[in-house]
């Protein structure tokens, strides 16, 4: 079996994954708090091929892809919506999803639900030091201090929790919301977060960079196809030459 053919096919597959990553990033260029994925192609070594001489070590590298999600900061947009919040600097809000599952996000596009609880757009309560944040309408509009304290009419109600992770790469998620199913991300509360009310953090996707990557993927794909073609041609020639 030709190693060149396998390597080529693997490369095509890897490039397809890269393209999928780019498409997902671009599709979420308007999603608030979205953390883009960056893609890395790495060579994975095959086991040494056993040859009859026993000494030859025909190692080869199989290209494979890795998507990482570096936690970045998106642009801040002023929305003048009192329930929109952005974290300045590092940190994540937490919301309580279905079945008590805690989800972490930098998407601060919040609302009040029908009971006056501060929730995210999926209806999951935003978590604070003492649980969910209950707003009393008769006390007037809410104001959020930079340290995350939510107050109404000068009275503090709750303080929004902002978390950081020691091992953010252990988080699962596709960009906006993250979960920590193995409790391995090393979550801790940030003592002095900076939360900005009336602002929203946009996606970290840079369309320019994604377009450049896309061109790179397209060209690499074509070149790999040529390599596979060449390989096949050589095999064909060998068959013609040695066939009786």
């Amino acid at each position, binding site marked *: 079996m030709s190693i060149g053919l396998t390597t080529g096919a693997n490369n*095509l597959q890897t*490039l*397809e*994954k890269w*393209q*999928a*990553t*780019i*498409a*997902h990033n*671009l*599709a*979420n*260029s*308007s*999603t*608030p708090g*979205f953390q883009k*994925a960056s893609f890395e192609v790495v060579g994975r070594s095959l086991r040494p091929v056993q040859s009859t001489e026993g000494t030859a070590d025909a190692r080869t590298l199989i290209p494979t892809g890795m*998507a*990482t*999600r570096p936690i970045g900061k998106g642009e801040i947009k002023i929305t*003048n*919506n009192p329930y929109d919040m952005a974290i300045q600097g590092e940190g994540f809000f937490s919301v309580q999803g279905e079945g008590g599952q805690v989800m972490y996000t930098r*998407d601060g*596009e919040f*609302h*009040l*639900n*029908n*009971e*006056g609880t501060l929730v995210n*757009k*999926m209806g999951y309560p935003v978590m604070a030091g003492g649980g969910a944040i209950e707003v009393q*309408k*008769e*006390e*007037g*509009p809410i104001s959020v201090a930079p340290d995350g304290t939510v107050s109404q009419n000068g009275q503090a109600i709750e303080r929004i929790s902002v978390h950081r992770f020691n091992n953010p*790469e*252990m*988080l*699962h*998620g*596709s*960009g*906006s*919301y993250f979960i920590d199913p*193995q409790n*391995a991300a090393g979550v801790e509360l940030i003592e002095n977060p900076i939360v900005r009310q009336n602002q929203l953090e946009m996606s970290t996707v840079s*369309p320019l960079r*994604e*377009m450049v990557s*896309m061109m790179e*993927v*397209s060209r690499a*794909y*074509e070149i790999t*196809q040529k390599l596979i*073609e060449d390989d096949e041609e050589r095999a064909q020639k060998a068959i013609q030459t040695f066939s009786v």
Partner: protein
Amino acid sequence: MNLSLYTAATGMEAQQLQLNTISNNLANANTIGFKRAKIEFQDMLYQSKREAGAQTGEGNSLPSGIELGNGTQVVSTARVFTQGSIKQTGEQMDIALDGEGFIEVRMPDGSTGYTRDGALKVGPDGQIMTSNGYTVLSNFQPMADGVEAVTILSSGDVTVRSANGEQTFRIQLTRFNNPSGLRSIGGNIYLETEGSGAPETGNPGEDGFGRVLQGYIESSNVNVVEEMVNLITAQRAYEINSKSIQASDQMLQTVAQLKR
């Protein structure tokens, strides 16, 4: 392979909805009491190919997995109930609500609707109506014949002076925990839903309810410049997503050429 084609398609679809929302906001830039809608995006669930932390043998584990997203989705189009600018009209039956609250109206089918459009009219029998002819509730009393002057204070106290004497009553306003959850049925009318919470009535200017301003109306809260900027970004995002589709298509074509 086809994953990226569909992913890009979700992006285009979402931007299309964004354009629809912006167009509707712009079309209603001069509608009295109109509240702009904003579209909310979220990414779609991912397919995990290799999970982070998975064991690779001999005590090693993967530092990061491959998580391929499926694109974006529109979660909601929420109405933004910020204050619209207040415009003077000088009409004695025009009222603007400065702050939170809705005026209650009776719909033709007998149900109750809510509006912030305060361009009120007096109907043939003296009852107060909105410009589209729905009877205004909110504790408004029908007016007697021969009205000379109507005075509405910011507290909602109304004094009607007519040939037969004076009539007084106080307007009640209604509010919801989550006004974004109201159902909009057009004509500036909103209906209560499960998501909005139950209506709560109160006196204007008290307990966080807004004040009533006579001789003014509330214009829409659409900011035309902001909408134009959103329009530009939406259009560009649409274009860029179409490029992803083109690129994926080209890759498929390349694959097709593999076998001659």
